[in-house]
């Protein structure tokens, strides 16, 4: 995006500037190809050096339950906006060039890919940190909800304390 060039001559505290070369946020039912997503992240970058990525898969067992099907619900509109806000916050903390998030919704099976986060930067430390930060915040802030179906019936997954604790590690600008 050409808007990112604004960063060099506008003060950093100006809110809502899209300051990355490339931001991509997708929420859909279809499966995804990580190689294609990574190529998409790298396209249009003015420079590169490092890409850190995370792929999440549907677990076969969760809290001792054998999961046959996972249903993912989300809040269209707010989901994309909240992911954008998370990426913006990461970009304020680390020198990022681009970020891409894809989250699937609908019915998924154990072993299916569910989420992908990719961050491009000139150096690995920023890429690793920003990727982990985006994933931690996505789990605790983006409006997605999981329901597990299996021999036990169906159950809405409860929010996990350790996910909150992981996200809280980044408070105050600290790197864990």
């Amino acid at each position, binding site marked *: 995006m050409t808007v990112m060039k604004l960063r060099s001559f506008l003060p950093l505290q100006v809110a809502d500037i899209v300051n990355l070369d490339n931001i991509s946020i997708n929420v859909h039912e279809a499966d995804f190809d990580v190689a294609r997503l990574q190529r998409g992240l790298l396209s249009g970058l003015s420079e590169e050096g490092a890409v850190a990525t995370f792929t999440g898969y549907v677990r076969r067992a969760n809290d001792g339950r054998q999961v046959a099907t996972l249903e993912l619900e989300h*809040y269209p509109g707010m989901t994309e906006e909240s992911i954008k806000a998370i990426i913006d916050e990461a970009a304020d903390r680390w020198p990022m060039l681009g970020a891409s998030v894809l989250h699937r919704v609908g019915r998924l099976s154990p072993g299916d890919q569910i989420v992908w986060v990719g961050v491009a930067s000139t150096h690995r430390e920023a890429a690793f940190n920003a990727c982990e930060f985006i*994933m931690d915040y996505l789990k605790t802030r983006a*409006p*997605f909800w*999981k329901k597990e179906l299996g021999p036990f019936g169906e159950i809405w997954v409860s929010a996990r304390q350790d996910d909150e604790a992981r996200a809280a590690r980044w408070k105050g600008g600290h790197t864990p």
Partner: protein
Amino acid sequence: MLKVLFFARIREELACSVLELQWPATGLDVSALQEQLCVEHGEPWRDILTQDNIIRAVNQKVITDNCELNDGDEIAFFPPVTGG
């Protein structure tokens, strides 16, 4: 007009995903709207909408304190998120 959305476990327990309400001439805040829904729909709604961990959003932004609403606002109630 106000649009009220419910998601996930809350949506299922209420058997309702969306409501459209007339904007009251007297004005309204989120807590008053919540109370109005509890009064209009009775006990199951009160039990569900007053759960401690319920999250409230106005115009797709999570709010932690009560806030005034305006005609045309979109309000959502949902349980803690579990994506990723």
